């Protein structure tokens, strides 16, 4: 039930966010401090989710698994910044992780 509530809540909220400015078209813009705060809140949440995902992986793979995942995340970020492509960023992260995991297995 929690998931249904969350999906409906985010769905309705998203529609309000999408439609409200179009319902009464105006040329006004948001105050810059509010605009910046919203942008940064989204960035902070995305970063926290990335960290959470890497830590979650670490609980399965141990501390070495977390380190390897963190290194792969850095590679993914570098490629995302340079190429601006999600496919390239995900591929770079996964290839780095697999390469480092194979190297770690050889060194053990």
């Amino acid at each position: 039930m929690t998931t249904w509530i969350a999906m409906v809540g985010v769905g309705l909220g998203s529609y309000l966010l999408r439609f409200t400015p179009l319902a009464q078209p105006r040329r006004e813009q948001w105050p810059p401090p509010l605009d910046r705060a919203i942008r940064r809140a989204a960035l902070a949440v995305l970063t926290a989710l990335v960290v959470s995902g890497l830590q979650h992986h670490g609980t399965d793979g141990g501390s070495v698994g977390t380190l390897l995942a963190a290194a792969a995340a850095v590679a993914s970020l570098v490629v995302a910044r340079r190429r601006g492509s999600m496919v390239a960023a995900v591929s770079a992260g996964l290839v780095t992780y697999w390469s480092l995991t194979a190297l770690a297995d050889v060194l053990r």
Partner: protein
Amino acid sequence: MAATAFDQPRELHAGAGAMLPMVAGLAPLGLVLGAAIANHREALAAWSGTLAIFGGSAHLAVIQSLDRGSAAPLAIATGLLIQARLVVYSASLADAWRHQPRWFRAIGAAVLVDPTWALADQRAAQPGSAADHRRYYLAGAATLVVAWVAIVTTGALLGARLGSGVGLELAGPFCLIAMAAPRLIEKSDWVVAAVAGTVATIAAGLPAGTSLLVAMGAGVGAGALIDGRSR
């Protein structure tokens, strides 16, 4: 200039064609989202967000937040924070769409997301009637809706076969990195991300996903502090 019968299919084909490369770029996120849906305890409810939320990053964030034990209000707040950028997209189209009928603005808003906004913004800068712009947008949006539902559903059906034990589950965080990367524009954005990431690491032990809120507050606070110092 009024649209002719000849213009109608041209705009429809152009809108759908312009959306196809964006669909290809979104495929990894859709598959990862589908896998997350399959592994979620209420898979059907999670899948319903594919159309209800119609935003991959917010949808994935809500599912991951629920998987980490967050209550519904916190998961909703997390999703809406990520969707908040849509207000800016919508506001930027308000002027270009002011001559469009209300029904179109109501339907167009429902499928407004990064790729459809990019399409609408691009088409609005080119010549053509309101009907041309409308057909172009609707064709592009319809293409995205059909493809998005198909990709997410495919990911959900493949489910656990996508990634268990070989590290493919890391594709989720890497998709989020790809979404965060373009937001790292100014030095203060890097500080916000660094502070939020550090706080999320330290606060990982907090109950029921509150680490997300703490990290968000710390990140926004750090950004505001930098703004205050630079004045």
